[in-house]
Structure formats: C-alpha cells, structure tokens
C-alpha cells in the first residue's frame, strides 16, 4: 500500500520546476549524488522529489555554481528548495506530524522540553535519593533509571522505524541488499556528499569558497554521538552481563568510548553552531532555523554535561549535574523523531535507495 504524502504541493511543484532546469543543464553533476540521480530520470513524481531532497546534504555548491540564481528569471535556489521539501517530508512522515512541525520550527519548544525534563530529574532525585549505590546510583538507583528511560528510549526508536517505513513506501524503495547498505554507510562515514566531489569541501559558511569545516564538525558530532552511544551500550552490558555496575575506571570501555565521544560531540556541536551563524540562511529551510540551532545546542549540551559530570566525580555538584545531564539525554531521545536528529535516519535511507537506483 502506498502512503499518500500530505506534503504541500507548492514546495514539490517548485522543486520540480527547478529540477527540470537542472536536468537540462547538468553542470553540477560532479558535486554530489543528487545530480547524477536527477540525470537518471526525466519525470519527477512527488516520491522522486522527496528522495532527492533527502539525498541533498545542503553543501550549496550547486547554488554558487549556478548561472540561474535570482535575479535571473529562472530563480534557481536548489539547496533551499530541496531543504523545504526535506523538512516537510520529515514532518509529514512523522507520527504525529504536529510534534515534528512544532519542535523543528521552535527552539523555544525544545528548550521547554529540556527544562521540564531537568525539573523532572531534580524532583525525582530529591525524593528518591535513599539508595545505597555508588557514583550516580548513590543519587538514583539503576533500576529507577532503567524504569524511567527504557520506554522513553524505545518509543522514539519505534516511531522512527515507522517513519522510515512510510518513507520507503513514498519513494518506492526496493528490498534492501547488504551492498546497498555498505555503500550508504561508507558515504555517510566519509560525508562524501559534503566533499564537493573532489575533497575541496562545501560552500556553507564562506560564500563561494570551499572549506571542509562543516564536514569535519559534522563528523566530530556524528562520531562523538556514536561513541557516547557505544559507551552507554557497553556500560549496560557490563552492568547486566558482567554484573559490573558504574562508576567505571578510566581504563574501561564506557570511559574510553565516552570520554573522547563527549569531547568530540562538544567540539562538533560548537563548530556546527558557529558555522550556522556564519552561513546564509536563505540557502536552507528558514522555517526550521531556530529549531535546528536549538537542537545542535541540546546535542552539545548533552556531551558537555556528561563530561562535567565525569570531572565532578566525588564533589557536591554531582546531583545537580546529574539532573541536568539526564534531562538533556531524555530530551534528546524524546525529540529524536521530531527534530533535526531524524535527518540522519532519512539521509541513510536516501543513500541506500540511491545505491539501489545506481545499481539498476
């Protein structure tokens, strides 16, 4: 069954108009995967446009190379047009889409979630710090943490899985093969589509000059996040399988993964936020700029509070830092389906589909 996408027709029609012009030009086909994907087709249905939009990494190379940007009557601004489609596609594929629209557009809404989550932990800690564990668990028992977090971790993942299923129907995706996934992961791991095609990088923050700053900061963020995630996963295994509860020494997997992960995450997010301030907002989806910025800061704050918590071990600051850190983590997870965070999932799906299309 095909899901009818309620995406607004204006953004789709506008992207179709621009892509028709791009397909007659083809000067940009060396920059990224979007243009070869355009060249493979002549007609672009809504699903095709949504796929192209999610394939676009917003490197902006095509905008600066384009002879047809405003005030030319063709008014090409493909990075913005595809960003508009992309953001709407995350919203319309979301469940419920109202949440996505709210949190993607509003930094204030994200901050509100964060404040509520932190407050929740402060209250919880104040009322339940009667356990006799070590480290964090002196303040909040592990079972209590698991009880609180498990549903809030699992639910967003289930929602995202459902969103991706809908996306796959929208773009008419085929059964996935390992080789498609390998290609997609390799592309994401190297941020190939922000390389400018030849490693010179993208045009994000320095006008028509190419730099790799965004690529590096993005990878610091992505790998930082993944390391933090791996740290948590190993800690969970140590806890349950090996009966080794936290706190862990420096030379343990959770710390060896988590410490560099936290540092990378902080550096990456700070860098991305800095670049975003310098970038031209008119080459992206302006409606979600506030929400995107708030999300980057939230992600960075998660890393920063985690690190602070580590350095504060044994001091009286731990309870308040713990509440703040857990608040950021919880917010991050709750917001996962409804924030910029989903771009990673959709991007990977788009890269997998692109690998399929290329193979045909």
């Amino acid at each position, binding site marked *: 069954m095909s899901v009818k996408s309620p995406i607004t027709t204006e953004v789709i029609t506008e992207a179709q108009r621009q892509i028709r012009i791009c397909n*007659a030009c083809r000067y940009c086909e060396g920059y990224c995967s979007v243009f070869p994907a355009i060249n493979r087709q002549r007609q672009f249905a809504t699903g095709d446009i949504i796929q192209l939009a999610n394939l676009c990494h917003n490197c902006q190379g095509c905008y600066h190379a384009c002879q047809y940007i405003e005030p030319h009557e063709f008014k090409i601004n493909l990075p913005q047009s595809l960003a508009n489609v992309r953001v709407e596609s995350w919203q319309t594929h979301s469940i419920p889409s109202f949440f996505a629209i709210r949190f993607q557009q509003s930094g204030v809404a994200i901050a509100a979630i964060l404040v509520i989550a932190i407050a929740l932990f402060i209250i919880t800690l104040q009322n339940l710090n009667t356990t006799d564990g070590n480290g964090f668990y002196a303040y909040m028992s592990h079972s209590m943490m698991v009880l609180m977090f498990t549903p809030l971790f699992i639910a967003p993942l289930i929602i995202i899985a459902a969103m991706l299923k809908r996306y796959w129907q929208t773009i008419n995706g085929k059964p996935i093969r390992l080789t498609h996934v390998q290609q997609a992961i390799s592309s994401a791991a190297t941020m190939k589509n922000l390389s400018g095609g030849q490693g010179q990088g993208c045009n994000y923050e320095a006008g028509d000059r190419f730099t790799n700053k965004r690529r590096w900061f993005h990878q610091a963020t992505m790998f930082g996040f993944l390391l933090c995630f791996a740290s948590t996963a190993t800690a969970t295994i140590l806890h349950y399988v090996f009966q080794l509860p936290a706190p862990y020494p420096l030379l343990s997997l959770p710390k060896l993964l988590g410490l560099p992960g936290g540092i990378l995450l902080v550096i990456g997010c700070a860098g991305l936020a800095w670049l975003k301030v310098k970038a031209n907002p008119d080459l992206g989806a302006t409606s979600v700029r506030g929400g995107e910025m708030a999300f980057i800061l939230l992600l960075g704050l998660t890393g920063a509070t985690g690190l602070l918590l580590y350095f504060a071990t044994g001091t009286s600051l731990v309870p308040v830092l713990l509440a703040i850190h857990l608040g950021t983590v919880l917010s991050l997870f709750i917001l996962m389906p409804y924030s910029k965070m989903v771009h990673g999932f959709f991007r990977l799906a788009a890269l997998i589909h692109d690998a399929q299309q290329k193979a045909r």
Partner: protein
Amino acid sequence: MILAGKHDTKMNSQTLNLTTTTWDVIVVGGGNAALCAAIEAASTGATVLLLEGAPPVYRGGNSRHTRNFRCMHKGPLSNLTDTYHIDEYFDDLIRVTKGQTDEKLAKLAIAESEACLPWMEAQGIRFQPSLSGTLSLSRTNAFFLGGGKALVNALYNTAEDLGVTVQYNAMVEKLIIKNSRFESLQLNINEQRHSIVGKSIVLASGGFQSNLDWLAQAWGPAARNFLIRGTPYNKGVVLKNMLDQGAQSVGDPTQCHAVAIDGRAPKFDGGIVTRLDCVPFSVVVNKSAHRFYDEGEDVWPKRYAIWGRLVAAQEDQIAYAIIDSKSVDLFMPSVFPAIQADTLDKLAQQLGLNEKALTDTVEQFNNACQTGDFHPTELDGLRTHGLELPKTNWARPVNKPPFYGYPLRPGVTFTYLGLKINETAQVMTDLDTPFKNIWAAGEIMAGNVLGQGYLAGFGMTIGTVFGRKAGQEAARHVS
C-alpha cells in the same frame, strides 16, 4: 569628485581609491580572459584594477555559461584521455573556420593551451570527467567542475587573494589615447561618471552580441527577434570606442554565431539549458508550416552550427520542431516542457500554425518515409524518398500520438568582429603598428583566430591563453 548619495561608505572609499590611484594595469571586463590577465599581472606585484560591468551576481561575462576548455595534450592530462596534438587541433579549427584564422596566433593558442590546464588548476579551477551526454568531447575538452560560473568564482577568489581590486557595475565608456598610448579612461559606476588613470590596459570586455541596435545594423532588422544566449553586459562599447580611435578590426562585422534554441527562452542569459537537440528527430516547419531544410543532414556539432542561421532566415525568425511520442525521449531533456496535443490539428492550433498546412506537410513527409533501421546516435541513412526537400537520416513518420512541438529561435552566442592583435596580444592600429600599452584578450579579439564557425571550448582557450599573455605583457611594460 562625486561621492554622494545612495552608496555605502565602503563603496565610496573604494571609488575614491580608484580615481586617485595610478594603476599599473587596468583590466576592462570580468570574464575568464580578464581574470587570467589580472591574476598574471598581480602575480608580478603590479597594482591591478579589474572593471566588471555587471553586478557581482552576474559577474564573469559569457564565461559564466561555458563548461569546458579545448586543450591540446601530448598524453593523458588531468581528465583528458589519449592525445590531442597540435596538428589535429589546428585541422579541427581550419574545418570550422574554413581558413578564416591567423595561423600564427591560432597555433600559438593551441600550443599554449596544454600548459594552461595545470595553470588553471593552480588558480583553483577544478576539472571533472566530461558531462553526461558529451562523451564525444572527453578527449579534446576539459570540463570545469560546476561549469563556468564555478571557474569564474575560483578566479575571482584567486585574484582577490593576490590583491586585485575589483570594481563591479563599472561600465567603461571611453579610453583616452594620445599618440598610440593609453592614458586614462572614463567610466560609469552606478550612474556616476569617473576618470581613472593607468599605465597599461588590458581590454577583455567581450563582443557586442547583447547590443541589439548594433546587431540590427549589422544583420538587419531580423536581429531584433534573436535571443542572446549569454550576458546582457556585452554591448561592445569598448570595442566600438577602440575602432573609432583607429584600432584595426578583424572578423566579419556583420556576422554572429547563432544556434537554434528553445523559442521560449529568456531574451538574455538563457545559457546552456535553452538548447534543443530534437531537430534530427523532427519535422521542422516555418510559420507557414512548410519544411525548409533537411533536418537529418548531419550530426552535432555541424547541425548545431547551422540551424540558428536557418531559423534566422525564416519569417519572424521562428520555426517549429514537430515530433511524436516515439522520439520525445531521444534527446537531452528540454528546459521547458514540450507543447503537447493528441492530434496534429490540435498541436497546430496550440502552436499558432495553420492546421491544414501542418497536417499536409506532415502527411506528405510521412508518406515519403521508408522502412529501415533507425539509429539515433549515428547517421543511419534512413531517408525519405520522393520529397523535393528530403530528410536524409533518421526519417521516421511522425504518427504516434501524443504529438509534441517546440518553437525554435536563433540564439546568438557571440560576434566575430574584434580588435586585431599581434603575437604578444597587443592591439594593432590601422597603420599596422601596436598601441604602446594596450592589450586585448578573450571575445574582443577572438575573431583573430576564430573568424568563422564554432569549435566547442575554443573560446575559453583563446581567453585563457591571450588573457595570461596580455596580463604578463602589460605587467612587464610597467615594471
């Protein structure tokens, strides 16, 4: 000095700086040739001012619309495969120009093109494998990653890094020349007149193809219906001013290079996307719905070169390519959707053609088609029989609805009239002596080597080779 009004302080202080400095090298123009000249001159330490007539968004002249560089090479070079020797390159040039070339200058351009490619890379220009649909050029032409505007951006960045002062919206009106020596120039910046003094000058301000009055004078009133594929800023003001001051001209003043493009294209600046490659699969008719030339005569690029002229000769300078659903996907996608109808009658109505005349023409054509093998990418010899005006290849009946129509108009690419130069790119006077401190590069002198016809990517070769030369020579003159 007039510095008042609507412009910000930065602009005013730059304008002040412009007019109080005696520049070592002034470069008129802002495309590839101008930038190559400015970069070469600035590399020697000279103070360089580049005067671009367009605002920043439209900078780069016709280079904005280019996509490749025809390059000689004795072995594989960058993305270029195999070899492309000077003799073969020169033969290609002779074939398109029918000998309308200065052999010495042409061979110089060709020979130096090989060293230009690595130089361009060093200036930040990137090359890529030849674009989809252009495999025929993969041996001879190096394609710019991102096209001509990306090239222009890279060159502006390099020029700025070298300290070149760039003034946009700077329309040069007049050079003050005394005893064959350039002294100063008058220009208009944002509707303010200024005078600028320089020790040497490089003219790289293009041809006159966007000056419709001049085109109409040269070609006749029909030229007002031509579309101009490139920049609207090439008005030929500097070219005209130099010719009025005794510069020697080169190239046929009445001719321009025109191709048949989508008739719905913008008047100016439509660029590459307005091309239509549907002619060989079409029945092409004029306003009276009559055919006027063998649509299947030849493959690209010859076909490309002649159809602009053919359409220009028709009433109202318009023609219509009629195809059916068998052929609609056989050529590069068009920028505007084809006009579509279920019957030829309805198509004629939509195109504003006489219905009976069009159906008669197509019927007559269809009846003359023969059975045989159709090969869209080569001369297949599938020809009509019995028509006074045959179609000699790809002649398949137009009979499978829906039917499609594309209006065609002449799209002017460049003009041939230019300034005669010597081997150091110095502009020559009518007396066959050079102006002491005036050089020329790019379209304004391309007529020296490309007197007729068109050779893909050769304009950029001329611009790069002579732009570099002019910049080097101008800088040497003041050192």
